[in-house]
C-alpha cells in the first residue's frame, strides 16, 4: 500500500486530469458498446421486415435506439438505414475523439512521472555511498533505473485506468445482456470460471518457462562472451573444438527452452481456443433456439453474441492486468527501497569551507565492514607536499584507506581532518576537489581518449591533455592507435591492454590538477621500466604536491615516506633508509624484488 501511495505522490497534481481521462475512458467504452445495439436495429427493423422469409414476424420496438423508430411505418427502410448509418458514424467519431484525446492526455502525466522517477534514481546513484551501492550489482541497478521506472509509471498510466475500463465494460455488457433477455446472462457465467482458472494456471507456469528462457539466454550470452574474451588462450591451446562443444551445450539448452515454451503455449492455446469455440457455439445454439421460439429477434441474437464476448475478453483482461499489477508493484517497491536506503554518507547540513593547500591528518581511523576490521587505528600526518608510499599485501586495506580520504567510504572510528576541519563537515563536492584519484579498478568511458582524459573539465585545452598523457607515458601508444586522441575506447570502443588503460587513467587524474594526487596500484599492469619512468616523471612534474601512492613494487615507493600496512594496521613507517635499517617486512620485500628484477 505504501508503494501505491509513493506512486500517487508523483501525480497528485495531475489527479484531476487523471480523473478526467478515466471519465473519458468510461464514455468511450459506453459508446463502443452501443454499436451492437445499432446493428441490432438494422437487422431487426430494416432488413427483417423486408425479408420474405420473415414476413409477418414482428419484433417489439425496444432497445436504446427505439427513438429512431418513432413514427415507424411512416419511415421508409432506406431513410431509417441512412439515419442509423449517420448515427453510427457520429458515435464512432465521438468515440475516437475521446479515445485519442484520452490516450494523449495520459501521456502528459505518465511521462512526467517517469521523468521524475528517472531523475531521482539517477541522483541517488551519484549521491549515495559506495556501501549502499555495493549491495546492488550492475544488473540490479540497470533494472531499477531503466525498466522499473517505466513499468511503475505504467501501473498508473495504463494498468489501473484500463482495469477500471474493463470493469466498467463488463458492467455495461451485463446490463445490455439483461436488457436483451435476462437468462442469457447466465451463459458467460459458465465459461468464465473455466477461462479464468485456465488463465491463472497459465500465468503461473509461464513464469517458470520465462525464467528458464531468461537463464538459458544469459548462460548462452556469457558463454559466447567468455569465448570472445578468451580468444588468445583458445588459440594457444588449440581448444576450438572443445569450445564448440561447450557452446553447443548452451545453444541446445536455449533451443530446448524455446521448444518447451512452444509446447506450453500451444497446449494452453488449445485450451483457450476450445473454451472460446464452445462458448461461441453454445451462444449460437441458445440464440438460435430463442429466435425460433420468438423470444428474441435476429438482431438481438447478433448483439447478444457481441456482449458475451465482451464480457469474456474483459474478464480475461482484468486477470491479466492483475498479474501485471503485482509485477509492476514489485518494480515500484525496488525503486522505493533504493531511494530510501539510508544515505550513509550524508552531506553536512552547513558545510564548512576550507582553504587550499590541504594539510591532511588521520587520527586513529578505523573501518569495519560486516564485522571484519579493514582499517585499525591509522594515524597519519600528511602536510601539503608530502610524498606517501603505502605498501602491504592485497587485502591489507590500502585501497580502503584512500577511499576514506576522499570520502568514498566513511571510517567507523577515528577522524580525518583537512586543515583542522573534520572531513564530515566539508561538503562532498569540495572534498573531492582536493584529490586527483586514480582507483585500482580502471574504468574508461565509451568516448574518445581525449574526452576521457579531459573528464574533469571538457573545455580543457588539447595541449593540456597531451601534456598529461605524456607525463603518464601514454602519448606514444595513443599516437599509434587508429585515430590517435580521437580513438574511441571503453566498452564500445577498441580494446586497450591493461597497462594502456592504466596510463590513460593516470593522465585523466593528472589533468584534474588537484592539490593531492592519489595513485592506487596504478602500475600493476606495467612493466618495471615503464613504471619507473612514469613515477619519475610525475614526481618531477609535481614536486610541491602531496602524492599518495600504493604499490606492490618497493621500487615504486622508494622516494616516499613509506608506511607498511598489515591487516589494516601500520606496522612499519619511515623513509626507505630507515626501513632498510629496521630490517623488517619492507626491507625483506625490497631485497627480494630488486635481487631478481631486471629492467628492459
Amino acid at each position, binding site marked *: 500500500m505504501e508503494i501505491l501511495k509513493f506512486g500517487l505522490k508523483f501525480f497528485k497534481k495531475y489527479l484531476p486530469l487523471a480523473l478526467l481521462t478515466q471519465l473519458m475512458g468510461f464514455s468511450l467504452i459506453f459508446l463502443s458498446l452501443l454499436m451492437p445495439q445499432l446493428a441490432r436495429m438494422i437487422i431487426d427493423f430494416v432488413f427483417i421486415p423486408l425479408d420474405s422469409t420473415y414476413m409477418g414476424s414482428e419484433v417489439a420496438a425496444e432497445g436504446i435506439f427505439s427513438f429512431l423508430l418513432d413514427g415507424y411505418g411512416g419511415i421508409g427502410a432506406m431513410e431509417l438505414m441512412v439515419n442509423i448509418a449517420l448515427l453510427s458514424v457520429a458515435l464512432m467519431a465521438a468515440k*475516437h475523439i475521446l479515445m485519442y484525446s484520452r490516450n494523449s492526455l495520459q501521456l502528459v502525466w505518465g511521462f512526467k512521472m517517469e521523468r521524475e522517477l528517472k531523475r531521482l534514481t539517477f541522483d541517488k546513484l551519484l549521491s549515495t555511498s559506495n556501501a549502499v551501492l555495493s549491495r546492488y550489482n550492475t544488473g540490479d541497478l540497470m533494472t531499477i533505473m531503466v525498466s522499473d521506472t517505466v513499468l511503475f509509471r505504467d501501473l498508473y498510466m495504463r494498468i489501473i485506468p484500463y482495469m477500471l475500463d474493463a470493469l466498467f465494460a463488463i458492467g455495461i455488457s451485463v446490463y445490455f445482456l439483461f436488457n436483451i433477455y435476462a437468462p442469457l446472462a447466465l451463459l458467460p457465467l459458465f465459461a468464465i470460471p473455466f477461462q479464468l482458472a485456465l488463465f491463472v494456471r497459465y500465468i503461473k507456469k509461464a513464469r517458470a518457462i520465462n525464467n528458464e528462457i531468461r537463464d538459458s539466454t544469459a548462460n548462452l550470452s556469457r558463454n559466447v562472451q567468455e569465448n570472445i574474451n578468451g580468444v588468445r588462450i583458445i588459440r594457444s591451446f*588449440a581448444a576450438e573444438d572443445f569450445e564448440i562443444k561447450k557452446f553447443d551445450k548452451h545453444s541446445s539448452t536455449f533451443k530446448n527452452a524455446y521448444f518447451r515454451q512452444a509446447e506450453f503455449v500451444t497446449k494452453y492455446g488449445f485450451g483457450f481456443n476450445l473454451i472460446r469455440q464452445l462458448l461461441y*457455439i453454445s451462444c449460437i445454439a441458445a440464440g438460435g433456439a430463442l429466435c425460433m421460439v420468438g423470444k428474441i429477434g*435476429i438482431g438481438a441474437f447478433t448483439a447478444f453474441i457481441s456482449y458475451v464476448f465482451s464480457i469474456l475478453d474483459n474478464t480475461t483482461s482484468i486477470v491479466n492486468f492483475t498479474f501485471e499489477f503485482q509485477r509492476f508493484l514489485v518494480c515500484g517497491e525496488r525503486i522505493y527501497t533504493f531511494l530510501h536506503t539510508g544515505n550513509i554518507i550524508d552531506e553536512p547540513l552547513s558545510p564548512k569551507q576550507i582553504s587550499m593547500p590541504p594539510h591532511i591528518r588521520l587520527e586513529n581511523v578505523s573501518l569495519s565492514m560486516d564485522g571484519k576490521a579493514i582499517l585499525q587505528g591509522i594515524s597519519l600526518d600528511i602536510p601539503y607536499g608530502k610524498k606517501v608510499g603505502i605498501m602491504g599485501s592485497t587485502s591489507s586495506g590500502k585501497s580502503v584507506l584512500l577511499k576514506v580520504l576522499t570520502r568514498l567510504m566513511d571510517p567507523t572510528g577515528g577522524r580525518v581532518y583537512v586543515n583542522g576541519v573534520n572531513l564530515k563537515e566539508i561538503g562532498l563536492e569540495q572534498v573531492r576537489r582536493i584529490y586527483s584519484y586514480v582507483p585500482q579498478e580502471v574504468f574508461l568511458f565509451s568516448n574518445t581518449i581525449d574526452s576521457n582524459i579531459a573528464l*574533469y573539465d571538457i573545455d580543457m585545452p588539447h595541449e593540456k591533455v597531451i601534456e598529461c598523457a605524456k607525463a603518464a607515458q601514454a602519448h606514444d601508444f595513443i599516437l599509434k592507435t587508429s585515430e590517435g586522441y580521437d580513438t574511441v575506447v571503453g566498452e564500445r*570502443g577498441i580494446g586497450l591492454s591493461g597497462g594502456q588503460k592504466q596510463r590513460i587513467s593516470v593522465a585523466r587524474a593528472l589533468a584534474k590538477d588537484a592539490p593531492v594526487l592519489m595513485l592506487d596500484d596504478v602500475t600493476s*599492469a606495467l*612493466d618495471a621500466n615503464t613504471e619507473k619512468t612514469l613515477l619519475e616523471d610525475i614526481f618531477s612534474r609535481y614536486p610541491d604536491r602531496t602524492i599518495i601512492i600504493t604499490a606492490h613494487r618497493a621500487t615504486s615507493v622508494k622516494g616516499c615516506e613509506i608506511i607498511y600496512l598489515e591487516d589494516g594496521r601500520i606496522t612499519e613507517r619511515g623513509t626507505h633508509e630507515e626501513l632498510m635499517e629496521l630490517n623488517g617486512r619492507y626491507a625483506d620485500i625490497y631485497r627480494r624484488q630488486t635481487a631478481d628484477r631486471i629492467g*628492459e
Partner: protein
Amino acid sequence: MARNTYFQDEVLEEKFNSKQLLRILRYALPYKKIFIGVGAMMLAAIGLSLLPALYIKHIVDEVIPAGSYEGLSLVICLFLLTGLADIIIQFFHGRLMSKTGHTIIYNIRGDIFKKLQKLSFDYFDNRPAGKILIRVTNYIDELAGFFANTLLNFVINILKIAVLMVFLFALNYVLASIILAIMIPMGAFVLFIRSKLGKLFRNVRNKDSNRVAFTSENILGVTIIKSFNRKQKNMEIYGDLVNQSLRGWRNIHLVNELFVPGVETIWNIGNMLIYIAALSLIIGGADLHVGTVIAFINYIGTFWGPLNQLSMILQQFTSVSSNLERVFETMDTPPLISDKDGAIELPPIEGRVTFENVTFSYDGKVNVLENFDLDVPKGKTIALVGPTGAGKSTVVNLIPRFYDVTGGRVLIDGHDVRDVTLKSLRSQLGIMMQDPFIFKGTVLDNIRYCREDATDEECIEAAKKIFAHEFISKLPNGYYSELGERGEGLSAGEKQLLSFARVILRDPKILILDEATSSIDTNTEQKIQKALEVLLEGRTSFIIAHRLSTIIRADCILYIDNKGIAEAGTHEKLISKKGLYYMLHKSR
C-alpha cells in the same frame, strides 16, 4: 560527453536485400517437408475459415424461419467439427513452426560460432566484444520469428485474401466489390502508419540505446564520476537523454493511437455501406436475404487479420535483412591464418625450433624483424630481452603461427609451420601470455581446460609438480572450489601458478612464456620461481624475461633490438662484452 558519434554504427540503414534472404533460405531447405505440410494445413484452415459465416447464414435464412430443431442441431454439430478442426490445425501449426524456426536458428548460430573460432586476433582486437556478441545472440534470435511465421505467412495470407475475395464475389458481386473498395484505403492507411512508426521506432531505438549505455556507464564508473566531480554535469546529460527518449516515445504514441480509430472508422463505414447497398438491392427486388447480409458483415472481419499481417511483412523482411547483413559480414570474413590445402599433421615433436631468414611486418610497411636467423636445439632455454616494441613478442608469436612471416620460414623439427595443421601445431606447444585467463568453473576445470581425457588425479599431479597444491588445498572446497569470472578470490601469483599447472598437464615440448608483469605478488614469488625451474626442464623454452633468475639460468640470452638479434650469448659472456645487455643489467 559525445553521445551519438559512436553509436552510429549500431543503426545501420535498413535496406531490403533479396540476395541475403535467398542465402538464408538455404538454411530452411532441410525442413521443406515441414513447411509444405504446415502450408497444406493452413490452406485447409483457409477453407475452414469460410464456413462459420455460412453456417450462420444458413441458420438465419433457413433454420430459424423453418423452426427446425433438427436443422439447428445439425448446423451446431458441423460448427463443432469445423471449430475443432481449426483449433487442432492451429495447435500443430504453432508447435511445428516454432520448433522448426528455433532449430534453423540453432544451426545458423552454430555456423557463425564455428566461424568465429577460425578468425584471427585482429578481428577481435578491432571490435568491441559487444558487437561480436550481438551477432551470435540477438540478431540470430530475431531470425526465429522470421522462419517460424513470416516466411509462410507471407504466402498464406496472400492466398487467404485471394480465396476469400473470389468466394465473396461468387456470393454477391456487388457487396464483394464494396469490401474490395474498403480494403484498399484500409490497406493504404495501415501501410502508411506502419512506415511512419517504423521510422519513429528506429529513431527512438537510437535514443534509447544511447540513454541505456550512458546509464550503464554511470553505474560502472560511479566512483570515477564522484571523484571527478561530474555529478551535476552527468545529471544534466542524463536529463537531456531522458527527454529525447520520451519525446521519441511520445511521437510514437501519438501516431500509434491513430491506428485503431483509423481502421475502425474505415471498417465501420464499410459496414454501413454494405448495409445500404444490400438494402438498395433488396428494395430493387434482388433475392438477397438477411443471412447473407450478416455473413458479409462477418466476412469483413476475417480480412483484418491477413491484411494486418501482410502490412507487417515488409518491415519484418527489412529488419531481418539488416540483421543478416551483420551476421553475414562475420561469416564471410576470411581468416588470416588457416590450414593450407593438404596440410599434414605435425608428428610428435622433439622441440627443435629454427627461424630461417625471417622477415615480419604487422602492417606491411614497417619491418619488425628482418633477416632473423635462429636455431634452437631441443631442450634449450632462450631468454629474450630488449626494449619495448623491439620484437620480442613478435618472435614468439611466429612459432605457433599467430601471425605468418612475410619472408623466410619458421621450422619446428624441420617442418615449416605453415605446412602443418594449426591444431596439431598448437596442441604440442605450451603458451602462457600475460593474462592467465581463469574462467568460471572449479579449480580442476581450470587446470584441465580442454584436455577432456585428463583424470582428476592427473590434474592434481600437475598442480603438485608446480607447487600449487598447497594454496589450492587451503581453498574452501579445495580442488572443487568454484572460481569466479576472471578468478576473483585468487592473488595474481596464484592465478599464474594455476596457469602453470594447465601447461604442465599438457607436457609440451616447446614452451612460450611472457613474464612482463611478474613478481607483483611477493608472497607467491618464491613458489613461482621454483615452479619455473620445473616447468623449463626438458623443454625448449622461449621466455620474454624479466626475472633475473630466469635470465641468468637461460642457455642463451637474446637481446632483441633493431629488427633482430643485437646480442646473443650466456649471461657471463654478455656481461663481459660490456654491450647493450651489460647496460641493461647495470641500470637496475
